[in-house]
Structures are given as C-alpha cells and as structure tokens.
C-alpha cells in the first residue's frame, strides 16, 4: 500500500480481560510500514490500559460516555480536532457506534473522515433483527426472539426449544436449560445491558469468526477467518489461528452484499458436525483479535483508515493461513504524572511533551 501520513483517532483502549479492540487496531496501524502519521487514543476512563502504553498512542484524550449523548461527544471531538488535528476517527465499540454514525456529516464538515455503516445497516445486522437476514444469505440464522418482559419466557418454549441463550443487545450471553434459569438470566442481562433481551436458539458446533471490511457498495474489501483455540472463562478467544475456509468466505461475501456493509465487522458462525454453518452474530466493529489480520498479511485496520481518509484500497484476499495469535496479560508501569494528566486535564499529550 502507498505511503499514508494521517492523524488517526481510535477508541476502545480498554484492554482488559474482555478487551476493547482499540489497542489491536492501533498496533495494526503501527505495523503498516507505510504509515507515518500520528495516532490519537480516545478513552472513556482514565484507567483504560491502552492509555499508558507509550508506543501505542501519541496523544490520548478522554471523551464523554455514550450515555451523555451526541452533543457532548460532538463538542469534545471538535475540541480535540482543534488541538490535535484529526484526519480520521475509527470507533471500535458497539455502544458508541450509533453516536459516531449520527455525527458522520458533522465530522466530515470538520474534515474528519470515517468509514462507518449507515444507521439502517447497523440496525439490520443487530441481534434483534438478525432473523430478517433469512433468505438473503445462504447461511441459516438460529431462531431468535426479542423480548422485553420476563413473563414472555413462560411461553417461549413454544417457539424456541431449550436450551437457548439470552443475550444483551450489545454483549453478554447466558445459557438457559429451564424457565427458572431463563428468568434468572433475563434479569442478569437487563441489570447489565438493559432491554431488550434477545433469546437465541442454541446451535452446537465449533465457533468460527471472520473479521471483514465491507466497501459499502456490496463488496468485500478483505477478510480473515479464524478459529479460537483457547477460551477464557468469559468465552473470549485468548488464542486463535487463521484458517482457510472457502465456504465461510463465500458466506461473508454474501453477507457484505446483503447488508451493503460499509466498514469493519466481525461475523460469528457455528460450524456443525454435519458441515453446516449457522450465523450467530454480526458485530459492527473490529474484534479485539484484529491484529491477527495484520500478522497474517491483510492489514484491515490500515485499510479502513485509508478508506476513511478517502484513499483507494484494492480488495485483499490472500493471507497466511496458520498464523496464530496468543494473547498475553502484562503489568505496565505507569507514571503518576501520566495518570494526573489524564485525570486532571482529560488528556495525555506525549507528542506535545506536556499537558496543555
């Protein structure tokens, strides 16, 4: 790819045991030998681990939580734009995407590029509407029902057999084998993620994941398929391996066509023992394991940054099958001065040398 010299803002620096994708996105950008720009980290909390990795973001700014609404975010991004001169912003968290999508035109006026799906595309792939994709893609979608009241669980077995999963709109999945377990799980999901709750049929098999980028016109920019080889107790992939699966790639291309998806996404499927595939979820952002794409030879975060900056990116197909990732937990040493800057001033400006 050609030389690329932009200032790119990335969210999701919460690299915890349930990591946000921001650190992986930034590492991918840094791994692009043609990237010579600056990276700005956008964090919600002063203890997000990615803030303190000096080789990741040149500068870090705190931004308001999505619950504070788009006006607060717009005001903060305007301020950051004035101070840091952003060219591109890559949001990486589910809950913030509706806000960034609603600000797309405003950001464009500020000369800040994005490469995001439309609100309609975002809604169509949501867990609540995934069943609407039936018939548009070859891959079956498990039976799904959206509920807003625990009382609905007493009749739901007529439509979806036990065991099934109860899922939050953004995150969290609990398996239920009886109505008692289902009611308990319902309240756990609501307490953490609010309503609605999505009930999804269980499909048994191997979970496979694809990180993909759609061009917004129905085409696939690039994709890497992966099988998790080690899971945490939260079901998060702690290790994985890039695989060659032509059927899965064809299904991903179909999905990009049906959704006319623009931007990054993670496609989660279950491969059953009989050779079938079932679509579990389409997450509307990069997964936390996206650095594997750069390691395997298809740097998808770099592609998205370039597309957001208005550059052309040729479709990328060939990657090194068998490339593995193995995640690691490290204790970073952080200085009290850095913590003070991010806590007191809401920013940590390494490129400027000190807080402004």
């Amino acid at each position, binding site marked *: 790819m050609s030389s690329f010299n932009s200032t790119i803002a990335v969210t999701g620096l919460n690299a915890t045991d349930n990591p946000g994708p921001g650190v992986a996105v930034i590492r991918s950008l840094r791994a692009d030998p043609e990237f010579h720009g600056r990276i700005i980290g956008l964090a919600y909390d002063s203890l997000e681990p990615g803030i303190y990795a000096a080789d990741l973001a040149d500068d870090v700014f705190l931004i308001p939580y999505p619950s504070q609404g788009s006006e607060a975010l717009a005001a903060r991004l305007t301020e950051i734009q004035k101070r840091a001169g952003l060219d591109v912003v890559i949001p990486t968290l589910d809950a913030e995407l509706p806000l960034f999508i609603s600000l797309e035109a405003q950001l464009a006026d500020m000369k800040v590029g994005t490469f995001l799906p439309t609100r309609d595309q975002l809604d169509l792939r949501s867990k609540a509407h995934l069943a609407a994709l039936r018939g548009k893609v070859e891959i079956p979608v498990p039976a799904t029902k959206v509920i807003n009241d625990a009382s609905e669980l007493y009749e739901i077995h007529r439509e979806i057999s036990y065991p099934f999963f109860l899922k939050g709109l953004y995150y969290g999945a609990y398996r239920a084998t009886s109505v008692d377990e289902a009611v308990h799980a319902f309240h756990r999901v609501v307490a953490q993620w609010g309503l609605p709750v999505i009930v999804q049929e269980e499909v048994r098999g191997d979970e496979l994941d694809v990180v993909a980028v759609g061009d917004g016109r129905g085409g696939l920019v690039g994709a890497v398929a992966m099988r998790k080889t080690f899971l945490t107790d939260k079901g998060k992939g702690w290790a994985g*391996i*890039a*695989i060659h*699966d*032509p*059927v899965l790639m064809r299904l991903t291309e179909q999905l990009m066509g049906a959704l006319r998806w623009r931007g990054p996404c993670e496609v989660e499927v279950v491969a059953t023992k009989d050779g079938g595939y079932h679509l579990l979820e389409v997450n509307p952002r990069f997964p936390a394991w996206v650095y594997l794409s750069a390691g395997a030879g298809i740097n998808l975060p770099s592609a998205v940054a370039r597309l957001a900056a208005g550059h052309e990116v040729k479709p990328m197909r060939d990657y090194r*099958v*068998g490339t593995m990732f193995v995640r690691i937990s490290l204790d970073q040493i952080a200085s009290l001065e850095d913590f003070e800057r991010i806590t007191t001033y809401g920013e940590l400006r390494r490129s400027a040398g000190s807080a402004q």
Partner: protein
Amino acid sequence: MDGHNKLRDLAVSDSGFVFDPYTGSTFSVNLTGLTILRGLKEGHGREDIVGELQTGFAAGDADYHRDLDEFVGQLRNQGLLPLDFSVER
C-alpha cells in the same frame, strides 16, 4: 470440503507436526503415522504404503497392515478422510 482434498492440503512437517488449514487443528504423528500420511497424500495404495513401512521399520507384515488400518481409522475420526474411506487390499 471432502476428506480427499483435505488430506492433500494438510501441511506436514518432517517432525510429524500436522496442520489442517480448514479447521486450524494441529496434530502430532509418530514416524509410522508420518510414513502412512505421506503415502496417502501422494495417493499411494496399500501395497506401496506397506512397502514404505517395510523399508523404514522392522515388524511383521500383519503389523504393517494393522498400523495402516488403525491410522486410517484415526484420520476418519478426525474428519481428515471420508467416513467410507479405506485403503483397498
């Protein structure tokens, strides 16, 4: 992906480390398994594979045939060969 094609696409190292690019699964096989696997990948028949085992190992004829059949059974169980696959006598 049928088992024949899968077998052809397996990456097999000299140490007997085997990688299935379709599933990401990895296996380790011993020298006997490695000899059989390489023979199957190259499309060799029973007599050829048994001949390759006779060249590399000192055992009775019945042992070679049994090793071959048992190993093929393991490959079937791992989904690397079709369930109805066998090496014809």
